[in-house]
């Protein structure tokens, strides 16, 4: 069970609704919000300077939502974004969907036209409450100023409790402007988490004890539950090998003796083969996403499933769970005895596979091989390394080749796959964890979707380090066109990209370019030495592909490998 956030104590003086919003954010301990002002949220912006919460002015509302998302991932507390009604609110939608699909705590506050105007197609009126229903954990319209302290506190409690997610708070302008001298102090409803049943625990233990080829399947729920250290210890003590989803990377570092790597479409061959041969998957905080399972009907054909998750709706949704353990992840893990039989022959064999199928970094030629550069970068930075990616080839190279020592260090748009996430997410992450070395790893396509946030970096001098991997292509689409559309390259050419170094300089950001392999070490040195924001423009081969690859709709057993590797 989570403890509900107490309704904040607000001084019983006459306050406007907008002042109550700012008071409440401060009372809830919100240190920073990401936003963009506009007509219907102006009373809140008028009150903001009197509060204790720092406002970061982004240059597009989508970036506010992505930055809040990353802040939420990094801290476990709800990231907050703020926008006006109409286009301001609709621009948040992609970021809200991103948080929903990756179970990230977020509170999105939108201005709304005044209540008498609602439903009249007023200027900048949109039904953001209705539009976002499918992509929020919950949403509310606050219709009385006296409800603001309680309902805002409730929004945070919902966003952060149980399986986290985004909560939308729509604030009509007249509510922001209205005077109130008796704000409510009702406690928000507690988010009651189920306790795992004794029957499910016993069934899980029976399956684990009987298994000869068990395998942990680690998902994003572990990081969200702050259960990484516990899982790490359980893996150490049990000796049961593990694979991770995209969101589960970092629970175990890649060098951990039981870690086989990422499974799925661009997973490690050893990880996918182990899943296919396993007789028991112990699934922790994961949801059998199709990018992880490949063709579901042929996924892990010999395996029983112990599924441990806080969300009952995930249990049995896509794969039958022989033991469905529903409850707080830490409580569930603590309740299970992971004692198992002799699995040494199994672990010896699959760990030999890990070595045999280890990625190679000896790519031919003098050009920069992005996987090798990313691996070197993450290893040089060490445990302080944090990467926020866009979506595409570079995102998969980051997942395959970077070293993450904790799941909060890998910020990636997994469920939604939203290009443009990298730069604003890096901003949110750096503000959440200023002591970490935060890198935005971007592709040239995704970078241009939120390139305006260079201005945010400049304004606040946020020392994010950008590695822009530029293949002058929409690389992953090009790769699929090469492999699955007979080489019919349709609308993927970005060879008329701007000069990114000049663009960065125009925003006031230090920048430099490299294109030869021997320049990589120097570039990493320069990035690490920079005290302020910096961009490294890295030209890479437009024809380089991400390997291995499970073709869409195929079994994970049918991985394609780079031709000169096989």
């Amino acid at each position, binding site marked *: 069970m989570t403890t509900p956030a107490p309704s904040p104590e607000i001084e019983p003086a006459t306050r406007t609704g907008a002042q109550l919003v700012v008071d409440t954010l401060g009372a809830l301990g919100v240190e920073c919000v990401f936003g963009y002002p506009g007509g219907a949220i102006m009373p809140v912006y008028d009150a903001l300077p009197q509060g204790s919460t720092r406002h970061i002015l982004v240059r597009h509302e989508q970036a506010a939502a992505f930055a809040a998302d990353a802040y939420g991932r990094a801290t476990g507390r709800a990231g907050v974004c703020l926008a006006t009604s109409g286009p301001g609110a609709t621009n948040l939608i992609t970021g809200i969907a991103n948080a929903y699909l990756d179970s990230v705590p977020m509170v999105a506050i939108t201005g709304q036209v005044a209540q008498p105007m609602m439903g009249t197609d007023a200027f900048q009126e949109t039904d953001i*409450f*209705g539009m976002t*229903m*499918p992509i929020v*954990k*919950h*949403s*509310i*319209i606050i*219709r009385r100023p006296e409800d603001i302290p309680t309902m805002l506190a409730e929004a945070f409690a*919902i966003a952060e409790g149980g399986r986290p997610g985004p909560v939308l708070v729509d604030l009509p302008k007249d509510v922001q402007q209205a005077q109130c001298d008796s704000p409510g102090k009702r406690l928000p409803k507690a988010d009651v988490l189920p306790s795992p049943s004794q029957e499910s625990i016993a069934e899980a233990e029976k399956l684990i004890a009987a298994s000869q080829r068990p395998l942990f399947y680690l998902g994003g729920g572990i990081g969200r539950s702050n259960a990484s250290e516990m899982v790490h210890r359980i893996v150490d003590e049990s000796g049961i090998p593990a694979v991770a989803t995209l969101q589960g990377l970092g629970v175990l570092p890649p060098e951990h003796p039981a870690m086989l790597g990422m499974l799925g479409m661009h997973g490690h061959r050893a990880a996918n083969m182990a899943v296919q041969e396993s007789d028991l998957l112990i699934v922790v905080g994961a949801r059998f996403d199709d990018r992880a399972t490949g063709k579901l009907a042929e996924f892990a054909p010999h395996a029983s499933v112990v599924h441990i998750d806080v*969300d*009952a*709706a995930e*249990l*049995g*949704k896509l794969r039958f769970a022989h033991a469905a353990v529903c409850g707080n992840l830490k409580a569930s893990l603590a309740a299970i005895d992971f004692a198992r039989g002799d699995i040494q022959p199994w672990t010896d064999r699959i760990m030999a596979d890990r070595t045999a199928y280890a990625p190679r970094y000896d790519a031919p030629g003098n050009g920069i091989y992005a996987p090798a550069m990313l691996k070197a970068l993450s290893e040089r930075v060490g445990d302080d390394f944090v990467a926020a990616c866009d979506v595409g080839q570079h995102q998969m190279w980051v997942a395959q080749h970077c070293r993450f020592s904790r799941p909060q260090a890998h910020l990636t748009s997994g469920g939604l796959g939203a290009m443009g996430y990298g730069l604003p997410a890096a901003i949110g992450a750096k503000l959440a964890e200023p002591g970490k070395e935060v890198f935005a790893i971007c592709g040239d396509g995704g970078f241009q979707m939120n390139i305006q946030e260079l201005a945010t970096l400049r304004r606040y001098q946020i020392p994010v380090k950008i590695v822009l991997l530029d293949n002058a292509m929409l690389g992953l689409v090009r790769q699929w066109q090469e492999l699955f559309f007979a080489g019919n390259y349709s609308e993927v050419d970005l060879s008329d990209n701007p000069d990114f170094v000049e663009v960065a300089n125009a925003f006031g950001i230090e920048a430099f370019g490299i294109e030869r392999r021997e320049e990589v070490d120097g570039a990493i040195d320069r990035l690490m030495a920079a005290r302020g924001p910096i961009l490294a423009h890295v030209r890479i081969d437009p024809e380089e592909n991400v390997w291995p690859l499970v073709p869409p709709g195929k079994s994970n057993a049918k991985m394609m490998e780079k031709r000169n590797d096989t």
Partner: protein
Amino acid sequence: MTLEHIRIEFRCAEGALRRILGVIEARAFAVRSMQMGSDGNRAVMTLALEPLDESRRVDIMLRQVERLYDVEATIRLSNAPPVMEVANVATA
């Protein structure tokens, strides 16, 4: 295709009805009949649903509905015709 009959009890919060129906449709069930009664604080509705295809399981969908914040209970009705079910609720 066989219809599935369900009953949902929920708080009358703003948007609750839209949210519930949205989840049902998004999870690939079409509403074929629906009855609802409310006292302004709590509401009960029964629905007859047709799954989009045979792979869609109503128990899985109901768990998606149950996690909505305003939903208090869901019941899969084995054989009660939905209209009669609502009539019974309304007169209770």
